[in-house]
């Protein structure tokens, strides 16, 4: 009993460190943000404004446009990225372990590269002049020069393409791990039943990796809703707010206009929307998932 107490004490001591870190760097900011969302924040003395910040947010047309942009961005980026990752993972799987690692490392490379550096490279790819890399590529197919980031027609698509390619690596690593965990007896049984490659993917692989898919969908949507960096660095939200995401709107509200109260209100509304989406996805897609 005494030994148990001693061990528990050590457990508590070591839990204390991350717990304190969590309280100071996560819980405290979230609670502070909630408090500030009801204030007109001023460094030398804030004043309570009740629900004004929330009312202003709901009255602001740009907030809805930003939400719509974020939704479009997430709805396209997440499934496309997952489908590509799933396909690439399946293609990688038959290779020897070493070759698998080479592919995984190659696809994971963008995830470890600085987002700012990647943005610079993508800006070069999207160079609007005829000398731009992508414009040279589309010219081969007989298409005219495109103003990729400067046109409302292509700006969002350009950001989505960039996000899909930059985010593949992480999904591939997780999918490959899940695929490697499938017992070979399932494939053998499918072979005996005469299943084709696509039937094996449809009836063996896909159901087994469903927990992974659910996990990637939920985290992907959360990341999509919180996306900020690409729009901030590549388009600044333009043209005509076609790429203003909720994250960028919140950033601008706080750091351009010093309206921290409204920014906090917007951030909390966004958090609530993300939570609803996450719960819905979990309920809809994880009914038959076993962990």
């Amino acid at each position: 009993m005494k030994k148990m107490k001693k061990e528990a004490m050590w457990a508590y001591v070591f839990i204390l460190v991350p717990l304190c870190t969590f309280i100071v760097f996560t819980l405290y900011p979230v609670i502070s943000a909630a408090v500030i969302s009801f204030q007109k924040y001023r460094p030398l003395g804030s004043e309570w404004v009740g629900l004004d910040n929330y009312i202003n947010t709901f009255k602001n047309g740009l907030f809805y446009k930003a939400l719509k942009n974020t939704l479009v961005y997430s709805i396209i980026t997440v499934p496309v990225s997952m489908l590509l990752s799933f396909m690439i993972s399946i293609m990688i799987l038959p290779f020897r372990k070493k070759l698998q690692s080479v592919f995984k490392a190659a696809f994971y490379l963008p995830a470890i590269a600085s987002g700012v550096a990647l943005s610079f490279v993508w800006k070069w790819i999207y160079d609007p002049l005829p000398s731009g890399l992508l414009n040279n590529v589309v010219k081969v197919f007989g298409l005219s020069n495109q103003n990729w980031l400067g046109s409302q027609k292509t700006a969002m698509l350009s950001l989505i393409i960039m996000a899909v390619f930059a985010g593949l690596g992480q999904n591939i690593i997780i999918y490959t791990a899940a695929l490697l965990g499938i017992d070979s007896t399932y494939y053998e049984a499918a072979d005996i039943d005469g299943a084709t490659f696509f039937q094996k993917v449809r009836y063996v692989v896909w159901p087994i990796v469903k927990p992974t898919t659910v996990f990637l969908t939920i985290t992907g949507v959360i990341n999509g809703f919180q996306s900020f960096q690409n729009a901030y660095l590549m388009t600044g939200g333009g043209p005509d707010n076609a790429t203003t995401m909720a994250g960028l709107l919140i950033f601008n509200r706080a750091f351009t206009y010093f309206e921290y109260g409204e920014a906090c209100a917007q951030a909390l509304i966004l958090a609530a929307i993300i939570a609803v989406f996450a719960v819905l996805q979990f309920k809809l897609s994880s009914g038959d998932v076993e962990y």
Partner: protein
Amino acid sequence: MKRKKMAALGMAAVMTLSSLAAGCGGTDKGGSSSASGTAAEGKKDVVTALLPPVSATYQDKINTYIEDFNKENPDIEIKVTTASWEDVTQKLDVQVNAGSPPDIAFIGSSGVTKYLDTDMAVDISKYLEEDQINDFDENVLNYFKNQEGLYGLPAYCEIQCIGGNRELLETAGIDWKAVQKDGWTYDEFREAIKKGVVKEGDQIKTYGFLFACAGVTAKDYFGIFVKNAGMPEAFDKDLKYAYTSKQMLTFLEDLRALIDDGSMPKELGSIDAGKRWNMMLTGQTMITGKGLSSFEKSAYENTEKLKNNDGSAVEGSIPVEYVVLPVPVFEGGNQQAQGAVDGYICLTGEKNPDEQHLKNVAKVAYYLASSERAAQTCQELYLKPVCESGRTAYEKLPPIENKNEDNTKAVESLTTQIAEARPDIPADKGAAAIKIQDEVIMPKFQGLLAGEVTPEEMYQAIVDAGHAAFGEAGCVSDES
């Protein structure tokens, strides 16, 4: 075993304490100045300053400046934190929002209202001597005023205009000296840049005019040009929102026409400042914007590198002699120049400094903005100082070699045409206008440049936003 456990416990305690300390590290107030100025007798009053690289050698020279000041003022100590141009605003904003800004920060005067709104900007007019205030050119000093308060001192006034490649201008038959002297109308400018377009087959080899308009830089194009379209400020003298005037519609149609003519690239909205300058040096444009007088130095240095076969010259660049040019005048407008007035704003925070400390802050701000400091900084930026003491010191400096005298005269002339500062605009109105600019004008302007928003649509959006923010009676209406 016991020792190991003790060590582990010690480590855990240290980590816990350090994380707590990091999270609660607000008591030091960012190492800012002593709160009570000269509270403790015999103790030096510390004045803190946050400074970006104002000119190429500014951050090197600042230590000498401080050393000299500290010697002459044994009761005051200046402590400087330097930051890059990219970081300085963010650093300052973080400190402001923590309630502990530096006593002095180098910012653009357009940021005065922003810090005024936080109640942290200090009115230094009562801490400065009259001759110190009178040292500065009145209109330039007014850029740091709001209502009756003076919140900072200007270091320089940079003329934001446009600039051309001399050889290409002359090839196109443009009398650039006359333009420098007399300015030009929109129609003259439009014709000139049409002549500057050089084609190779279907491809345009050289554009007549190019302005960096990617993201927020579009703000400069709009802001600099609108001054010459009869709307030098967002508010007229009666404090009515001016951009709802019909002149705005004509102005927008004129800007769009320059792209439709083929004189400017249709991809303008994606060309950033770096690419714009690169295109200037590689001969892909005859006239560039925005132009600063210091670009003459940059172009000259690149040309020298080319002459000396220096590999660090811009790839594909050609010798360029940079010519300062004024912005054209639109119908209903007058020749004016956009002056970017930057300088030293004075701030206070939770530390509640005493009067003596604030007096010391004002003294340091004046020291940094005047005499040799102003002269040396301005000379490096190819500008004339904006204070008398600076001009006196400037005359004693060795003259700049290889300076284009026509450019010098043009900049001096443009300096006299700087749009009048508007300290009469109340901070809340100014903030509302900035919000319309950022949330309506700039997004629509990007759409206009991309050819996806018509001038009429953009104008209507401005009118709607103006009416929503200031009421119809608070906006200029051409019908009335």
